[in-house]
């Protein structure tokens, strides 16, 4: 088979996975929320636990009217969901699902991920600016401050792992853990920083200031509806998956398992969804922080902690 | 209770010889004052008699004249005071008590909306409950007629 056919097949698989995963997570979030909030959650569509709600949701999103505000900056507004969505899909290129199940095993995988992930901010900002809505603008401004501030500890936290494993390739990191055990044993501090920064990066409670329903109605996607809104949602949930997968890769041994190829992929997915569950759980349990508290946490605690972790790891490696 | 009321009555008569001071059957001191002295009276009861908590300012339209009713509590002495001020309905202007009790601000704006009473020295004299561009008169006056066009029921023709 020529290489480009393989590439197209891979892209199709990734897109299909993004769609299914997004729908599944939306359903899962509603279900978990229902469980936490002492109610049932979706239960009407489909037999086991309203499972087909996810298709109902998707169909609803596709068939809804796509309203554009009259005063919006047309092209910026139009492209924002695409710009927000694309880097998230691009991140799948280097996620190692199994021993050979990876889009492309780059030797700069982590740098690629960091570069691609910071691109999402552009989409958020375009949406906030293009909507010509003050809530959206405020949300976008907050997003700018928040995502840039938290990207720094997020990336610094991974440096500890890179120092131990001595590679930037995601496959390489997993292979190191297959040999030496999970990184969480030595990099617990890094994981804590990573996880908190990850929540902020994903705009999830307690750091969902960018969306903040009760203050900014819905932040940067206030003015979106129909499938455009759906794209933001899909991108967001896919992003949750990507970040969780990254956390699993970096700290929890990735696909490392004794059960062969299928077992590896399954183990990887189980671990990832466990972290996703943790994120959902946190979302429905805690209130939201304020912008100044967010900044204080990011710059005064997470950044020094991540730097300390690097120094500490370096010292350990030296000895 | 009644001791305080007696004391309040005494002080008021002493300070303002012209006013009518009485006690209602529900244990509240009631003062009927001419509108010229309302600012002085308010300052006096606020500062000297410790009536610090204004609960409401109510207008009443008695057709020949309007009346403003202030109900004030003393949180320290557990006493209540009602001040009644008659205002001419044609030329309804009275001194504002909002500089004395800040909370009177909104209550006076409401009386302004509903009765057309102008408050001199009010910090922010704008309509509060009625729309800013309301021209239809003062709803709680007895001679108010709703001049808005009658609303037609809307049908959608198919």
């Amino acid at each position, binding site marked *: 088979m020529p290489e480009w056919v393989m590439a197209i097949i891979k892209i199709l698989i990734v897109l299909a996975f993004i769609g299914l995963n997004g729908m599944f997570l939306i359903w899962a979030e509603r279900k978990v929320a229902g469980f936490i909030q002492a109610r049932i959650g979706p239960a009407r569509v489909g037999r086991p636990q309203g499972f087909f709600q996810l298709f109902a949701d998707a169909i609803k999103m596709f068939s809804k009217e796509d309203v554009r505000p009259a005063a919006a900056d047309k092209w910026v507004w139009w492209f924002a969901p695409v710009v927000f969505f694309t880097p998230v899909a691009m991140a799948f290129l280097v996620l190692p699902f199994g021993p050979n199940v990876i889009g492309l095993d780059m030797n700069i995988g982590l740098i690629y991920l960091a570069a691609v992930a910071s691109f999402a901010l552009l989409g958020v900002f375009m949406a906030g600016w293009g909507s010509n809505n003050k809530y959206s603008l405020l949300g976008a401004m907050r997003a700018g401050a928040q995502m840039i501030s938290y990207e720094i500890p997020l990336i610094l936290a991974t440096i500890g792992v890179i120092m131990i494993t001595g590679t930037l390739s995601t496959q390489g990191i997993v292979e190191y853990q297959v040999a030496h055990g999970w990184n969480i044993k030595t990099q617990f501090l890094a994981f804590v920083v990573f996880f908190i920064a990850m929540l902020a990066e994903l705009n999830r409670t307690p750091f969902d200031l960018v969306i903040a329903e009760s203050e900014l109605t819905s932040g940067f996607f206030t003015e979106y509806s129909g499938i455009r809104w759906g794209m933001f949602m899909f991108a967001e949930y896919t992003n949750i998956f990507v970040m969780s997968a990254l956390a699993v890769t970096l700290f929890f041994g990735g696909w490392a398992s004794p059960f062969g190829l299928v077992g590896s992929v399954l183990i990887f997915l189980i671990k990832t969804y466990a972290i996703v569950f943790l994120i959902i759980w946190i979302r429905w349990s805690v209130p939201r922080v*304020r912008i100044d508290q967010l900044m204080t946490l990011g710059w005064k605690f997470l950044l020094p902690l991540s730097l300390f972790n690097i120094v500490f790891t370096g010292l350990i490696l030296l000895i | 209770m009644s001791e305080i009321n007696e004391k309040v009555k005494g002080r008021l008569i002493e300070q303002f010889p012209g006013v009518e001071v009485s006690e209602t059957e529900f244990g509240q001191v009631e003062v009927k004052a001419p509108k010229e002295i309302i600012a002085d009276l308010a300052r006096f009861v606020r500062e000297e008699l410790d009536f610090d908590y204004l609960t409401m300012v109510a207008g009443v339209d008695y057709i020949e004249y309007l009346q403003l009713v202030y109900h004030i509590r003393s949180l320290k002495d557990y006493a209540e005071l009602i001040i009644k001020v008659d205002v001419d309905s044609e030329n309804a202007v009275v001194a504002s008590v909002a500089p004395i009790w800040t909370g009177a601000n909104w209550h006076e704006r409401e009386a302004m909306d509903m009765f057309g009473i102008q408050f001199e020295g009010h910090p922010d004299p704008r309509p509060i409950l009625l729309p800013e561009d309301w021209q239809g008169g003062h709803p709680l006056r007895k001679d108010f007629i709703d001049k808005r066009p009658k609303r037609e029921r809307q049908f959608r023709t198919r």
Partner: protein
Amino acid sequence: MSEIEARRLKAEEVGHEKLILNLGPQHPSTHGVLRVITTLEGERITEAEPDIGFLHRNFEKIVEGWTWSQVIPLTDRNDYLANINNEHAYVLAVEKLAGIEVPERAEYIRVIMSELNRIASHLLTFGTFAMDMGAFTPFLYGFRERELLYDIFEKVTGARMMHNYVRLSGVRNDLPDGWDKEVLEFLDRLENDVIPDYYDLLIKNPIFEARSLGVGVLTKEDAIAYGAAGPILRGSGIDWDLRRDMPYSIYDRFDFEVITREEGDHYARFMVRMDEMIESAKIIRQAFEQMPEGPVMGKVPRVLKPEGDIYSAVEGPRGEIGVYLVGDGNFKPYRVKWRAPSFSNLSILPLMAKGQFVADIVLTIGTLDPIFGEVDR
């Protein structure tokens, strides 16, 4: 002049642009149809101006055309979360004005229902405050208990919210058999399970404390000057509760504490509400113990034509609900003035919001807890 300095001067010349942001009238956390015109500098509010009147229906004019007893159901619609308290306020004023006697048992029933309504209202405030803070789950937990309470109401009054239950000279009907046991069970659950749950769920959370402690401080002087009422007054350290200090109905027969907190911040006001629920439960328990048998309706003249004027007030969940009545010897009230606690409370918003973050003004509105049925009347 260095380049940086020149740049700064230029920025000052141009001036900071202020953003005027309309919060509401359609906004998820304005608790109804409040519009706040805020002027922002970055995330800070330099000025906030509430614009009210979207729900204005002129209750006071409408009731001038109705008979004295016809007014009662409409008072429900003023503060639609404290219906019995509203009815009680109005009925008490008319009874005082007309000199109507109320049977003992009816008084007890009124007290029990009022206090239950206070609990229901505070439960809702608990939930909405949490939601303003971005925690959705406590909101639903608050609503769960409130719903159980509404079931209890329904058994007595037949309605969940708009009860129309308190009548001149008594209440509409007696309590159903075994109802007291249900209420006591509910109160036990509230005190032993539910409120500790709320503490675990929200109040002990460090984020909750960081968001509410020391934020939106209202000083004693301001609270009195603005005529703040209820939990807002008591949250600022003023020991004032009409139920104890100027007892109406039969409140002088119960032993309860008036909860006050000195700090005057969001946390203080919030905790005053939480603790008041327990005090209300105490009152209800005592009322059940003391309650005599007997009729629940007294005698009312067929045509009521009271004369004179009266100001009478009760302590509702949001503070002093006052009614000023003028009767001119007719079967209709000449003037009904409704002193709504939320109206006075909301007038503090510009003061409190000044210099706050956008995120905090939402909490400030949540903790002032205005109900627009009674703000706009």
